[in-house]
């Protein structure tokens, strides 16, 4: 399985989710699901 190995990044490295926002509204809402793993095949 491929994955972003955030666990192997150097200390101080910043990892962000960025985006453009194309429509403006006071009722804008966003949700983010982050699927991460510890151990297992990535021990």
């Amino acid at each position, binding site marked *: 399985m491929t994955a972003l190995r955030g666990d192997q990044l150097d200390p101080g490295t910043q*990892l962000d989710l960025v*985006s453009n926002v194309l429509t403006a509204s006071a009722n804008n809402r966003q949700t983010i699901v*982050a699927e991460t*793993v510890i151990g297992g095949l990535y021990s």
Partner: protein
Amino acid sequence: MQPNNISAQQALQALDASNSLVGRNQGPELLNSSTVDLTNGATVTPNFLAIRRPIAELLIRLRFRVAVTVANYVAVGCEAPQNILQRIILTGSHAQYGSQTLFNMTGATAFLYPSLFSARGGGSLLINDVLASRPGQPITSSFLGTTAGSPYDVDMTFRLPMAPFVGIGSQSKKQAAAFWLQAADWGDSLQLSMLFGDKSSLGNSTGSTVTFSGYGGTGNPTVDVFAVYGLLGGLRDAFNGRGGVCIRNETIMNAFTALATGTKLQSLQKRVTLNLLVKSGLLETTLQSAGITTFASLSDRQLDATQVIQDSKAIRPNVANIVAKDWMANQFGVDNPARLLPDVVRRQRATR
């Protein structure tokens, strides 16, 4: 010996056992059944989950009748009725990794999440014994919210896989097995909480009278929790004390209401990251009870060029969410229905 160090003989035994695994799991076994108050909203917390054998996934079944009288819903939330399960939280204490929240997701997202990775992966929804369409483009509610269609007997299932999505073949289940919930790792510590909303989680009910009861109109709504136990055969001891943890955590953001370019939505934890799902839309704001979050609509035109940035470098450059989304749909062989807008949910798979 450290948990992650095994001898050559143990490695060969594990390889043999892995090759013998056929990937057929036990069917769902009922763990808990209880009633739930949907009139006022409630939290249901079953007893600790029993790990009789490794848990591959959990299933939640919710059954109720909702009657709409006097007037129709003014507007039905696009994720009704699955949104009535406002939040699913699974916590536990892992022998090696300590206290963990394995699953923290809205019911609406949990309902469709597995279907993003396989054509037959998500939950199921029956309304008056008619199978509702799977969430498509655009996402629209299968619950009409009209007096003419009332009452609505709802029987739906949410699927919570405990391992990463690796496909449906037997070979791939060997990889998934490393993340199943093992008694040696979790003991009796697994705790499931289900936070249920009320009529406002189905939309704007101004002027209408909404009544919840048990399925078929008698008694109270019920929620059942099932476990699907994995059958490891000769591999059953291979992950004792070294099982992995798959964590799915959903956060809701309300700060991004103005036009912006390259704005940071969220700092990501520096963990092994398999998938990121971004859902965007407009909130229902009328007659919402405290603590309830209901999307009136979802849109793929609210955000664009959504991507992971490591320092100032894009992990996987993306300038058009629609293109990225379509590419991901092809990777998993899932339906990405008619190119109508606004559409559903976008996702981004981060790879090394």
